[in-house]
């Protein structure tokens, strides 16, 4: 069961809803809050609750299924499955570094110090590390 957990998206943020759903669910999966065996609501239920198109949620579920997090059940939602973490390849690390630098630059342009961002990054990594 995954009772008490909530998926939250902000349609004003500029980030596509599909990306926010994938990111939000992945955080819960990586942190273990959504453990193997947990059942997720159907695509229809999530789409109605979020007020977004069915395809947006279906696409997000498919992406996470391709990453090995979910097993999809036709018309019934999805189940979280056991997943062996793959080794991070060089290409992924490079992509991560590029996105992180863009994010750090954005925050520094808004006045956040390097020390503050380091602490935030360390906290986020520790929080999600099982």
């Amino acid at each position, binding site marked *: 069961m995954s009772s008490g957990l*909530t*998926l939250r998206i902000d349609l004003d943020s500029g980030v596509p809803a599909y990306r926010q759903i994938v990111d939000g669910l992945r955080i819960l999966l990586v942190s273990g809050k959504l453990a193997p065996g947990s059942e997720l609501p159907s695509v229809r239920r999530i789409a109605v609750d979020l007020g977004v*198109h069915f395809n947006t949620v279906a696409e997000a579920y498919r992406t996470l299924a391709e990453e090995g997090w979910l097993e999809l059940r036709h018309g019934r939602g999805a189940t979280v499955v056991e997943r062996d973490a793959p080794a991070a390849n060089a290409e992924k690390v490079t992509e991560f570094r590029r996105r992180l630098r863009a994010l750090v630059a954005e925050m520094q342009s808004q006045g956040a110090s390097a020390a503050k961002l380091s602490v935030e990054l360390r906290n986020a990594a520790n929080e999600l590390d099982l």
Partner: protein
Amino acid sequence: MKLEILFTALPLALVAIIFQFLPLLTRRGIFFSATVDPEFPQSADGRRLLRSYRLQAALWTLIAIALGLVLAPQHPEYAALAPALLLVMGISVSYWLKFREVHERYGEHRPEIRRAELSPRTSGEAFSAWLWLPPFLALAAIGVYLQAHWNLLPERFPVHWGVDGQPNRWASRTWSGVYGPLLIGAGLNLFMLGVAWLVTRQSRKTAMQRIMVRLSELLLYPMTFASAAAAVLPLVSFPIWLIPVVMTVSIAAVIYWAYRQISVPTVDDATPEPQSDSYWRAGMFYYNPNDPAIFVSKRVGIGYTMNFANKISWVVLVGILLMALLPVLLIRK
């Protein structure tokens, strides 16, 4: 003639009273269906807009009553419908103009934060069997009682009364004549629960959803009372006016309870409705092609409206209208 005036003016006056209070029957932060600062309705501008709307609504009411009185002697068949239509359309235009003014001059933007609960849940969990089951059991118990006293039932008994309190339609002691009111009552109860169940499947988990399910369950009681009273009338003697009086008082009490529930300022929805005013056409009709929900909490009043951008909404709307008309058509037949 005096009776005609009463029956023309009274329903219009009742509708007009509801329209007078309509802008206040809403959640905090919504005024004339537009998103505003929660304190705006109490401001000088807010009070001015409300006064202006109420004046226009009162004028439309007077015009509608005058039309009804003109039509009543020559065209009594139009005397109720035409003024009612004029009243609804006129006040709707006034309301739309106020919505536009509030939205354009005083409207606020709320962040479009959406939430979805990740616990798998069923549509039936909002219902309470201990609340919806007793009305059906009561109808069944009365059916058994009538069966046990079949020989005491008169051969012919009244089933419909005119406004003067005199019976104008009769039934005979047959299966359909005796159990008809109970079956119609059970059918209406099932229909009411069916619509509530559909709403839980096709709407977000908001405070309105919880209130609507409870409201539907509570309304089964006055509806059941009317069917049960009509069914036992051939055996038990009581004043016929008791039925509409008990129904009106109990329905008013249930609706008042619902209004109290939605006006609680601390209500926090588990899965909030979309916030933008742009989804509301004329402040009254929800139109959001990206939203798969069919039922959406109304911005004014209690209950749900439909997402008119969704084709299924139109199918459901026609289905509900047909189901609602079915008992009327059966009775007329």
